[in-house]
């Protein structure tokens, strides 16, 4: 359970979980939403896999991540977002938007 709390403590990882709530996504597609390097994203994915909140499915050369959260874990994610940490998450989204603008 401490792995779950550790995974949910980081705003980037919470945002990854929120994105995966819409459906499975490739590692590259997920990384495009954040202004961080690929190795950093990979480390975030590893933490989430270690906490058993997501699972990786290798399809050819691509890695597809899918959500693997229980109801309680989703509720914890919701609480973490609700209690004042939403701002940090918004900041992550803003920086991702800036990153996309830089790329294009």
């Amino acid at each position, binding site marked *: 359970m401490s792995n779950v709390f550790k995974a949910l403590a980081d705003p980037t990882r919470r945002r990854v979980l929120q994105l995966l*709530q*819409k*459906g*499975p996504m490739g590692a590259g597609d997920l990384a495009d939403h954040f202004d961080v390097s690929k190795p950093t994203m990979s480390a975030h994915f590893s933490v989430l896999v270690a906490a*058993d909140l997501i699972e990786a499915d290798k399809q050819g050369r691509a890695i597809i991540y*899918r*959500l*693997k*959260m*229980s*109801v*309680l*874990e*989703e509720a914890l994610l919701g609480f973490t977002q609700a209690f004042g940490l939403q701002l940090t998450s918004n900041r992550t989204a803003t920086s991702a938007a800036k990153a996309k603008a830089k790329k294009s």
Partner: protein
Amino acid sequence: MTNANESQRSPFSIAHALIVAALLIGGSLTLVLLTPDVISRDLARRLLGVMLGAFVVYYANTVPKVLPPLVRGNAAAEQSMRRFTAWSIALGGLGYMAAWAFAPLEDANLIAVTCLGGALIVVGARGFQFRSRRHHP
């Protein structure tokens, strides 16, 4: 080996189901033995209802985590269906528990069954919609 260990730990494994069944029977027997000397018949009924609701919540909680994803089909829609099912039944189970814990005893059964039954009907309707969309996209 890892897969074998994981399947043994899964709440949907036979070993796990037998443990849960033993706990349910053991809990019910304990309540029967304690009634009416230690606890009243009414309290025993309430405790049994709360226990059954707790097991429903426990199983619903783990549905999206332990069931393997379907190989074919729309993965996003399937995940959405799973999450909806788990949340609905977990909330229905919580309602079942709350009804047995707090509602007047004469109404508790009706309220509890309405909560859980309502959740199951909603899940069934969504499942029917999900299936028909898969066959007629």
